[in-house]
């Protein structure tokens, strides 16, 4: 592996990274105004549907503490309606956390969970390391498992 982009392509096994790069555009002025974006998507692999009505807390590391930025609820498609992070420039770089309220969601959907549930709130900690990029961080979850990755 010689570059990060190649590494990602190997992992995802698709040309999606190229599409993201292309979408950023070539006009220098437009590029400088392109904010970093963060989106998410919850997929319920237990029922095979998008995770609707999942509460997600979005936090940013400030000093040595994660500070709550906003709380959103996923729509019928399992997505937050708006990007979590439309911030321009280097200010977007940093360490972030998404907290998915998974047990609350599965209880509402009628799943039988132990008490306390095996998986309650899932914390995904990740960094935004380049500005003007799109970061898509999905969660594929069941009451007993979850997966995340840098999507597109």
């Amino acid at each position: 592996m010689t570059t990060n982009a190649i590494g990602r392509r190997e992992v995802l096994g698709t040309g999606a990274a190229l599409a993201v790069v292309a979408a950023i555009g070539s006009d220098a002025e437009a590029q400088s105004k392109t904010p970093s974006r963060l989106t998410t998507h919850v997929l319920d692999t237990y029922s095979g549907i998008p995770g609707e009505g999942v509460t997600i807390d979005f936090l940013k590391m400030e000093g040595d503490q994660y500070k709550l930025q906003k709380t959103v609820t996923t729509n019928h498609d399992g997505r937050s309606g708006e990007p979590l992070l439309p911030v321009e420039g280097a200010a977007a770089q940093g360490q972030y956390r998404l907290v998915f309220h998974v047990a609350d969601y599965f209880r509402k959907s009628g799943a039988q969970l132990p008490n306390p549930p095996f998986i309650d709130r899932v914390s995904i900690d990740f960094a935004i390391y380049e500005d003007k990029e799109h970061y898509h961080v999905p969660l594929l979850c069941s009451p007993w498992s979850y997966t995340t990755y840098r999507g597109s």
Partner: protein
Amino acid sequence: MNDAIERRVFLTAGLAVGALGASSVAAGAQTAVTPRMTLHALDVYSGKPAANMRVDLSVLDGQNYRLIKTVNTTVSGRPEGPVLSGEECKVGEYELLFHVADYYAGLGVKLPSLPFLNKVPVRFAVFEPAAYHIPLLLTPWSYSTYRGS
């Protein structure tokens, strides 16, 4: 494009979840064994167990996670012996913190200066005395975890 990718990963995950169905059905059988907590780090980027990875085990104590112990994986991707065994494996909420970026840096994998994944927290409950096996399947850009057996 977006949906196609997610469907592909979704299907892959479906295999893991399918396997899990069996383990949750066997939950009754798991309660019969000596209570224990074990882990396994698998580097699916390199196609081998993740050796020499630091993992911190903490327990939720009030509002905060309190460090109990630090273990390191061997060449098999597992620490020597269970992380917790018998009486130690009490009902409670735990965090395993996998030092993923340090592991990949040790292999010479080029990561961003601020790695996308650095320390990966896996939070779960021991809800009854039983065997809890917590695998982590990881790359520098993704991971999966589940209740194994």
